[in-house]
């Protein structure tokens, strides 16, 4: 299987702060990878560089066979992006907004509208088609955002905090929907999240960033073991500078395995 993403030596500094400092990241076709790390680790900056929205100071990015920045437009025809914090244009109905994005992805009206209908049905949100985007709840917005990102059948789906501030039931729908897209469409996933239990459900590989550098890369179990913790939450707290014993995690509000909706 080839790589859908091949980023080498990414560096980005803002003023005197090195937000990203020599990150290498590759994703195979169909692979589900989480990019993790505490606040300020460089996750979002890395994602935005991979999407061509921020220019790296150094390094190279090849996205679905297209070298950025020159091949950005061609690459984006094979990539979808969802961010939990990003709304769709508020004065448009959901079906209109999605139809517009289908057009940006190069789909004609008929093909675009059919893709919109399929996407809404797939996530069981057909009833939202005529709602104004500004009226959506955060959970509905995220589901519509995912539909937007898969309209064109991308090879890679990039998700920045897709379940942030969502209720557990909606987060569950988002997660199962993403797993369905990955399994049935062969779409690779690159996800950032602060919910470690969710990441363990969703991703087969995790890449931890700290201070702009990759400090761990492997399966969730491998990474947890390498840091001497039982799960990713322990690794996260370790990297965030709060090293705690495993038996203290529950007291800190971390979800136990049984509490995670499946």
């Amino acid at each position: 299987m080839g790589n859908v993403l091949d980023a080498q030596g990414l560096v980005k500094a803002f003023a005197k702060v090195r937000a990203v400092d020599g990150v290498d990241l590759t994703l195979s076709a169909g692979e589900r990878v989480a990019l993790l790390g505490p606040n300020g680790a460089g996750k979002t900056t890395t994602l935005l560089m991979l999407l061509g929205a921020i220019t790296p100071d150094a390094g190279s990015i090849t996205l679905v066979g297209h070298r950025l920045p020159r091949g950005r437009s061609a690459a984006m025809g094979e990539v979808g992006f969802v961010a939990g914090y990003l709304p769709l244009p508020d004065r448009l109905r959901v079906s209109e907004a999605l139809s517009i994005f289908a057009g940006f992805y190069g789909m004609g009206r008929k093909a675009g509208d059919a893709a919109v209908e399929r996407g809404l049905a797939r996530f069981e949100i057909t009833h939202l088609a005529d709602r104004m985007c500004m009226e959506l709840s955060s959970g509905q917005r995220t589901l519509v955002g995912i539909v937007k990102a898969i309209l064109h059948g991308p090879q890679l789906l990039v998700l920045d905090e897709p379940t942030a501030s969502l209720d557990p039931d909606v987060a569950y729908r988002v997660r199962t929907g993403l797993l369905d897209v990955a399994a049935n469409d062969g779409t690779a996933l690159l996800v950032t999240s602060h919910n470690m239990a969710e990441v363990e459900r969703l991703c087969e590989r995790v890449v931890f960033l700290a201070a702009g550098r990759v400090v761990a890369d492997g399966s969730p179990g491998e990474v947890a073991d390498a840091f001497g913790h039982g799960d990713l939450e322990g690794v996260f707290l370790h990297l965030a500078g709060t090293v705690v014993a495993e038996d203290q995690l529950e007291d800190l509000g971390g979800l136990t395995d049984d509490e995670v909706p499946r």
Partner: protein
Amino acid sequence: MTSVASDRAPFSWLRVRTVVRRHGYVLFRSPHRWFDIAFWPVFDVLLWGSLGAFVAQENDVSRAATPYLLAGIMLFHVLFQSQIAVATGFMEETWTRNILNVMTTPLRESEYVVGLAAMGLLKLVAAMGTVSLTALVFYSFGLAEIGWGLVPVVGVLLLVGWCTAMLVIGLLLRYGQSAEILAWATTFTILSVSGVFNPVDSIPGVIQPIAKVLPTTYAFSAARQLLDGGPVPWADLGWATLGALVLAALSMFYVLRMLRLFRARGYVTRYS
């Protein structure tokens, strides 16, 4: 997939049409957006038309009669509408925090700008319909009185409007939403120093050098000469066209430079 293609995606008219459709939805959903193309043009024509009628009543030989003021304000609306449609089109993406969504699609910057300009043309047609009808109904004046010479004048004003919009977008990319006021300020600055209604020599002396480097000054001057029934003022039209082309080159250079800076400094996070 492992082989690397460095190809640039071809320009897509489908994506351009999609930009037009996106802003068409916004226009029809937002009654306040109709102020630019339905209300202000009417008020402007009434204000300047009435002023012209009053001055003409007071002084029969005054050049500042209704046709001059009406032609001036109507042509100013060509500049204003073409500029404001493109600038507010981009601002719409910032107001709705949609920039990152747009930037992560295959849409190219050139397609986006052409789409905004095309939408601007549609709004311009609507606005000019409004001003023309108002001027005709209330003052029996039509821009057609200027004749075919009007075509290059309108062309220059259209191009300058788009160029000014590019400068405003460049400023928005660089300085964020705090620069929004400039979308309106730039056009009204041009209004005050280009001799829209009056010859340049009636502008205060210290401002005249500024007026003389603006292509709009020559375009409005040409329109007045045509309205006087004179021959086509090729010299003025030539200077206006040359100035507009220079402005086009400068504005494209500036907006592309600001876009590079926008990406280099990660300013997209201001809108997400």
